[in-house]
């Protein structure tokens, strides 16, 4: 291995490096200076994000176990952006009395999950994939229980760890069957040797189920709402955007590479689960009052929409998925950012009815949330419209007209509930609405990035076209 080979792994190595820096900083600072860790972590993460975009060589390492292609680098960059925004948005929350003695742990755990995701995305065999997946989920469980004195937070932590253990078990069972029938864990060897023997189909079903838990596809979604509600808002936003995005990325890569021989089969499975996921996620979301639960169900139905891009297995579909995740990061983090800001300022108000008349008191936050919800619903001129449009194009391209019809009707259902918070903020009148408050600098920066992302990513066609040039397919 030559020295420049390490350049291929620069995302992971840099993240490990900043994790070590934060660890050392934590050891060598006293309580008074610990406040400096917040800006330090954010700045380090910003540097990593920017460095990630610099051009770099591509190739494979460790005999195909680690793969760095342009597309995978792009995926990592997208996740880095998401993580950076979450870092920025958490800054003011971490300043509070309850949290300020565990600031560096928060950043360390998030960075280690990010390392896991990056390795997972770059994986070229099932062992790496599995390790990356574990590294990406286990620390999140500790973070979900971050707010130790709240029962709900502890509940979220324990639920998440149990569910991820269960799903990992199912996934491993599937992987062991694949190894048993093929005799290799390397993706390139498996994809060639994979046939449609009963055991292999069984192994795929186990694999699919395991991944379905991670992406929270119906009927494996039941943990989502409780965990999202219980966990602190910033952890929830990370979980719903970055974690989910990473799982979707590797899932789509594996479907079109490892499982390409049984594409006809997984397409049928995806068709049905996508339709059910969209519809049920939407129907549940309509009934929620707690905004975190609301966004949890909305993220389930978004997962259904994202699957639309994968179903076709085409290059366009893959590009649409990657693009949509990028859009989704900005939109969902915008929504969560506003909810977090309001929750911190008002002492934990997270219900939709608390938002009555918010526009009168906090117009900027209301407009940001409205824009984010419109983007999630797919309404022009924000980026969500373009994202959904490309996903639908990918479905239509392969001639799944009925699925497309189900999907477009689901966008209308989703529009209904995305308008409910808008209605609360703008139209409903309240005796006592949340008083005006001034957000601190970090929150503002985080939200401005989100809004800029929502506007620019859609109109600037270069971004989509760039992803399109990288994309891969069956």
């Amino acid at each position, binding site marked *: 291995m030559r020295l420049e080979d390490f350049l291929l792994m620069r995302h992971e190595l840099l993240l490990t490096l900043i994790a070590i820096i934060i660890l050392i900083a934590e050891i060598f600072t006293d309580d008074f200076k610990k406040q400096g860790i917040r800006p330090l972590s954010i700045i380090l993460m910003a540097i990593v994000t920017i460095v990630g975009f610099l051009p770099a060589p591509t190739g494979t390492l460790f005999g195909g176990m680690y793969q760095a292609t342009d597309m995978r680098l792009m995926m990592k960059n997208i996740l880095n952006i998401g993580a950076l925004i979450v870092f920025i948005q958490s800054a003011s929350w971490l300043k509070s009395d309850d949290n300020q003695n565990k600031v560096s742990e928060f950043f360390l755990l998030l960075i280690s999950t990010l390392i896991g995701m990056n390795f997972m995305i770059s994986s070229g065999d099932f062992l790496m994939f599995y390790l990356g997946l574990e590294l990406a989920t286990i620390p999140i469980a500790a973070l979900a229980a971050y707010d130790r004195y709240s029962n709900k937070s502890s509940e979220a932590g324990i639920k998440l760890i149990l569910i991820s253990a269960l799903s990992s078990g199912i996934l491993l069972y599937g992987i062991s069957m694949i190894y048993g029938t093929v005799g290799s864990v390397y993706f390139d060897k498996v994809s060639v040797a994979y046939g449609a023997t009963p055991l292999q189909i069984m192994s795929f079903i186990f694999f699919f189920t395991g991944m379905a838990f991670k992406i929270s596809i119906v009927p494996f979604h039941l943990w989502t709402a409780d965990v999202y509600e219980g966990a602190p808002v910033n952890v929830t936003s990370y979980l719903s955007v970055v974690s989910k995005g990473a799982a979707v990325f590797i899932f789509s890569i594996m479907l079109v590479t490892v499982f390409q021989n049984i594409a006809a089969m997984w397409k049928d499975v995806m068709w049905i689960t996508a339709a059910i996921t969209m519809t049920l996620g939407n129907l549940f979301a309509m009934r929620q009052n707690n905004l975190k639960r609301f966004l949890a169900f909305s993220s389930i139905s978004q997962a259904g929409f994202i699957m639309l891009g994968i179903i076709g297995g085409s290059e366009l579909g893959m590009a649409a998925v990657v693009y949509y995740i990028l859009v989704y990061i900005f939109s969902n983090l915008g929504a969560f950012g506003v909810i977090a800001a309001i929750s911190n300022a008002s002492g934990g108000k997270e219900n939709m009815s608390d938002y009555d008349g918010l526009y009168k008191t906090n117009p900027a936050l209301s407009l940001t949330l409205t824009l984010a919800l419109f983007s999630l619903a797919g309404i022009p001129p924000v980026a969500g*419209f373009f994202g959904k449009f490309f996903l639908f194009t990918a479905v239509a391209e392969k001639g799944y*007209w009925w699925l497309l*019809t189900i999907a*477009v009707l689901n966008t209308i259902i989703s*529009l209904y509930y995305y308008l409910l918070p*808008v*209605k609360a903020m*703008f*139209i409903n009148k309240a005796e006592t609405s949340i008083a005006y408050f001034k957000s601190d600098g970090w929150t503002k920066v985080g939200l401005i990035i989100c809004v800029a992302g929502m506007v620019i990513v859609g109109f600037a*066609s270069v971004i989509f076209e760039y992803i399109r040039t990288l994309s891969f397919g069956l």
Partner: protein
Amino acid sequence: MDFLSLFVIVPFLTVVGIVFCKDFKQVRLTAAIGMTIQLGLAVALIFMYLAERKAGNMAEMLFMADYVWFPSLNIRYAIGVDGISVAMIGLTAVVVITGILASWEVQHLSREFFISLILLATGVFGFFITIDLFSMFLFYELAVIPMYLLIGLWGTGPKEYSAMKLTLMLMGGSALLLVGIFGLYFNSNPDGGQLTFHILEISKVHIDPMAQRFFFPFTFVGFGVLGAMFPLHTWSPDGHSSAPTAVSMLHAGVLMKLGGYGCFRVAIFLMPDAAHELGWIFLILTTISVVYGAFGAIQQKDLKYINAYSSVSHCGLVLFAILMMNKTSMNGAILQMISHGLMTALFFALIGMIYGRTHTRLINEMGGLMKIIPFLGVVYVIAGLASLGLPGLSGFVAEMTIFIGSFQHTDTFHRVCTIVATSSIVITAVYILRVVGILLMGPIKNKEFENLGDAKWFERLSLGTLVVVIASIGLAPLWLSNMINDSLVPIIEKLTMNL
């Protein structure tokens, strides 16, 4: 910089200007100035268009511009106008400026109100100038979504319910439309070349009839929802009655026309085979719309409901005429869109002004208003007469053309439909005269109404503009119908080509 894009840029700049205004007077002034410029542009466009045509430029679309947006999918921002879009742009410009004048005294959150209103107008203008299905769809949704806030925030009555119902039904229509657009896109190049969203390029292709049969209903229903086609019209009475004055004007006057225009430009023009084959289903539905709307209007006691149902009837007539698919009836359909747009805007403006004075919209509680507020009363009578098709006003020209065109079909089915639809004229006369009788004539029912003031200057300006335009179209319709006729030629060719 091309001329047509100004129609999107000017409203956008107006919105930006409003954001920086200090108080409500500045806001409304900025809005009025911006939209007056827009009206000037529209008038200039009409003259430029006529001059081009006179100079012998017989291209299908004029002032075209084409910018590639997403090259890999061949999504473009393509614009261009023919006589029909020019007429619609003119209509929109008139209705928008009168709408702004009619809401001169909206003080509650005025900044947000005018921004939403102008955003809506931006969507409509964009829709009429674009000839690329993607941008068309984008502008369509852009025009619908501000409606939610406009009705929900500034409306009256059960406004939240109406706003939600209207938004969801219209967006539902757009969702179906999206399926239709994808159907057109993926069938736009059967030889395996580059696919396209460009309307003119698709119109050169003969789309596989099987695909047409599948996607025509999606497209037609998608636009038909906005055109208030029975049984998908139910958003219209609730929405219009809850909306504030200017919004009702814009919505009934312009936004509903998007439906008719889209059915015409996209559904029928691009999928003629299916239109011939499946048109009869929609013809029945639109005939029902025409008659049902008219009967619905007789039943109602609320002024806005009456006008909303009459809009269903009139817009049904637009779709009805489009489905007759000959040159005369289609010409009538476009004229009807313009005429109905103007007079319904006039109606809603009047109703808003009357309501602002009497604080009731129930016709039974009012009476003898002609003596108290003569200006509004006279204009109401003019609007009513235009609506029931009095010669000399625009309504007559439009309905006459439609029915002449419809009678050119000699088969029983079309004849029956035409005769049934024609009966709506009589019913229209009944409800219009009934309202005029109760509302304006007779003794003054409520003593409190005796010292109501008549129209103020901005109201007079708003109403006067509309009346002048209605009368001038009614008196000199030929230039307009010639302009439309020229543009109909390629469309009719396409319709008859594959028969």
